[in-house]
């Protein structure tokens, strides 16, 4: 293929932000178009270079083609929107009814979330998977956070010889928990990034929001066992935040325009963290609120930076051979 066309199609691919198989399908059709158009122009007497430039010129800008293609391919069905909202609705229901403090309900919900996520992961990784994946990560990350004291005791015994040798016993299961959490977080984020950094952001959004809440609830751990305890007072606010997340996830799936999806993420990431922080720390001043909002936004947007690293010039997953392979098309 002529170098100019190849560069042009690479520009289209860089701005598509769709899953690789869909990108290959789109590019295959465009390659077919360019082959025919260039052949026709060459028959009309143009040189190969002239024909390529004319074909590119009449095709429109790469960004325009990529944007329109994204809008045509990225919109999910209503069923997908509903499935995407489900994990947030489960979380909202657990918190609104205070059932999150009943181990059986909590374990059942986590098992449901984990099994659904695993099945979706094994069966094609649909876009709605990523709103479920975050809820599988949350219990693991909470486990990591809660077990930090055990780890500190073990580290103290090893480094300073202080404390009890029994502190070393939990090290193996802890190491497994830490490794599993880290691997799952990285694998899920990388997988989401391969599709679209917006999906990775969508996946990460509940983490800072839940993190602020868990951090505070854990400080009141002794009260958690009694059902009249303090942690209840934030349940209403948290349930509302998870409801907003559910609606946002559904809207996100249905929106075609990328800038609207980005706007929706900005709103939930920043404002969601601020609302939770404000409901927990009622004496939080404006500066503190601004810091929480900025941190929430930064965390939600970190996949953009990772994505920009992924877009190195070396990334060219649509070689001529790949495009010619009918298995890559649907």
């Amino acid at each position, binding site marked *: 293929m002529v170098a100019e066309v190849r560069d042009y199609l690479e520009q289209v691919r860089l701005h598509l932000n769709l899953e690789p198989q869909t990108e290959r399908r789109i590019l295959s*059709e*465009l390659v*077919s178009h360019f082959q025919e158009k260039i052949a026709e122009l060459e028959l009309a007497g143009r040189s190969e270079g002239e024909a390529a430039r004319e074909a590119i010129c*009449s095709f*429109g800008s790469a960004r325009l*083609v990529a944007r*329109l*293609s994204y809008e045509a391919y990225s919109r999910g069905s209503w069923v997908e929107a509903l499935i995407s909202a489900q994990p947030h609705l489960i979380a909202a229901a657990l918190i609104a009814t205070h059932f999150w403090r009943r181990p059986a309900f909590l374990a059942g919900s986590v098992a449901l979330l984990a099994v659904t996520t695993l099945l979706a992961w094994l069966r094609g990784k649909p876009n709605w998977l990523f709103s479920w994946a975050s809820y599988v990560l949350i219990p693991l990350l909470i486990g990591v956070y809660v077990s930090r004291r055990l780890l500190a005791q073990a580290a103290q015994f090893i480094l300073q010889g202080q404390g009890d040798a029994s502190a070393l016993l939990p090290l193996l299961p802890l190491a497994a928990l830490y490794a599993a959490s880290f691997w799952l977080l990285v694998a899920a984020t990388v997988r989401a990034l391969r599709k679209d950094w917006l999906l990775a952001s969508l996946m990460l959004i509940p983490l800072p929001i839940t993190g602020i809440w868990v951090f505070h609830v854990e400080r009141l751990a002794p009260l958690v066992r009694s059902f009249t305890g303090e942690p209840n007072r934030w349940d209403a606010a948290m349930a509302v935040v998870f409801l907003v997340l559910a609606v946002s996830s559904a809207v996100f799936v249905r929106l075609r325009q990328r800038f609207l999806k980005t706007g929706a993420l900005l709103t939930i990431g920043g404002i969601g963290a601020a609302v939770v922080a404000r409901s927990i720390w009622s004496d939080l001043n404006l500066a503190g609120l601004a810091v929480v909002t900025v941190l929430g936004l930064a965390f939600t947007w970190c996949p953009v930076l990772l994505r920009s690293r992924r877009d190195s010039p070396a990334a060219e997953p649509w070689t001529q051979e790949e495009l010619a392979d*009918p298995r890559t098309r649907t």
Partner: protein
Amino acid sequence: MQSDLLGYDSDLLRGNTDPMLLFLIEEHGESYGYRLIKEIEQRSGGFFRFKEGTVYPALRKLENDGLIQGSWKRLPSGQERRYYRITAHGREVLRKKLAMWQNFNNAIGLIYQPARG
């Protein structure tokens, strides 16, 4: 689809591109992107000129809506093309759109003719 803005306002075209594509696909039994682009240009005497890259997303939207169905075919030359066929739902939608267009065209024609008396 986006026009090159040659001699007409692109707003006039909006809303008519889907029926145009559906009509041409139905007429041929099946067709593909490049042929549709050429045909629209030829049949309109060069009046309609699209940014060609915008036709493919338009076809995808029609496919998403269940109005057309696409499939890959390998040509004797080894080249592959994605062909589109109209569906039963697409035919029904096309019939309605054509009737609507006819009524709209008649009404506009009546307005633009000189007033009597």
